[in-house]
């Protein structure tokens, strides 16, 4: 599923675009250690963590799409890091659970 398709599914806004950003699974988590420990590669990360370190974790686990829930804003340094690392950021008003439901076409991505 491409970032654009994910964005449409969660009725969100593509805050940061990234070429070839796509996912074939979903992981929901706000604890970055948990994400690092369990998120599978090539997943979309559904989270409320709107800061730089979320992008660092995405880069480490090989996740190229982040869905930021509850309309959390994207700080400039996070947007910058995401653009640099090729991670797309989508903001949505949905909660994590609602966003996960909206992405139910994708399987869980667990490591």
């Amino acid at each position, binding site marked *: 599923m491409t970032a654009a398709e994910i964005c449409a599914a969660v009725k969100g806004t593509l805050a940061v675009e990234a070429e070839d950003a796509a996912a074939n699974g979903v992981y929901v988590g706000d604890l970055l250690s948990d994400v690092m420990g369990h998120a599978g590669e090539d997943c979309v990360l559904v989270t409320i963590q709107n800061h730089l370190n979320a992008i660092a974790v995405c880069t480490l686990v090989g996740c190229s799409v982040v869905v930021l829930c509850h309309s959390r804003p994207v700080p400039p340094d996070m947007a910058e890091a995401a653009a640099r690392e090729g991670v797309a950021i989508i903001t949505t008003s949905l909660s994590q659970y609602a966003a996960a439901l909206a992405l139910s076409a994708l399987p*869980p991505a667990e490591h």
Partner: protein
Amino acid sequence: MPAEYSPTILQGQHTNDDEILAKTPLDTKALGGDSSVIIMELLQRFKVRDVMKRQIIAVARSTTLREAQRLMRENRISGLPVCEDGRLYGIVSVNDIINALDNGWIEDSCERHMATNLVVMEAGMPISFALRYFNNYTYGRFPVLDSNRKLVGILSQRDVMRALLYELSVEIRKLERKTAGNGPLRATGERYFRREWAVVRNDLSRAGHAANDIKVILRERKVARSVARRVAVAAYELEINICIHSHGGVLVLLISDDTITITAKDRGPGIPDIEWACRDGTSTANDWIRSLGFGAGMGLSNSKRVADSFDIQSEVGKFTKVTCTFNMVPPEPAPAEGGAS
């Protein structure tokens, strides 16, 4: 007889070595006396016979100085031992040849003009002793005799230098392995890559840089993706741990042929109960840290889970040191991750 060949008569009087040494104050620095144990040990362990040249180009007593000159020129050497059946009679040097040309006796035999007061070395001498000779005399090379007084080699400063450099490189390589985080010493290869990152307390804006660099380095070195991911996860967890729990420290990456080691060492405050700290979900992080998605109490347990070997040492008030080692080759084919594909 050229004056430069008559400093001290040693021929047949090897017990005089101590006298020679007594004459010239020992330059301990030149001999390694002010050096490391390893260098001192090397200088003692190596004998002259271990590093001398065994291929000797020599002339007989009846050989003409002109022939000696030709041999020196062709072999690019500045001196020739005069030797028959292993017995050393003297040495002909470039200076002897120059004198012969100047004075018109170049067709004379070597025996007539060779130096006979010789400084020689014994094959069983430690290199430290040989270095004293180079220090005490101006000669660039010395004939080497065995216990039967037979000429068995020539020792030059270059021979000593080459041997010492080689052995030092071997010793340093051993040291590098030992200092690789004091972790299990499983590296068997000879190529090493080491890099270190400083991690600053509470600087979360930079936390993750080292782990990211490490991931890039592993990718460039074509480390298996599944291994690189595990290494990066441990590196990130440990980097964050130093950042949020310690007074600051370093993260070290060491890559050998068959293992990758991540070592995280901080300057305290140390962990009072390591077992508790390694348990999933236990953390001393404050609310601020937790609000950033850290402090889930999974850092150490995650690191332990992804590593092939895990070691933690800590002393309250002093330091915590965590070492994660990864086998370069995954133990089994990497399973499809999370059923995501």
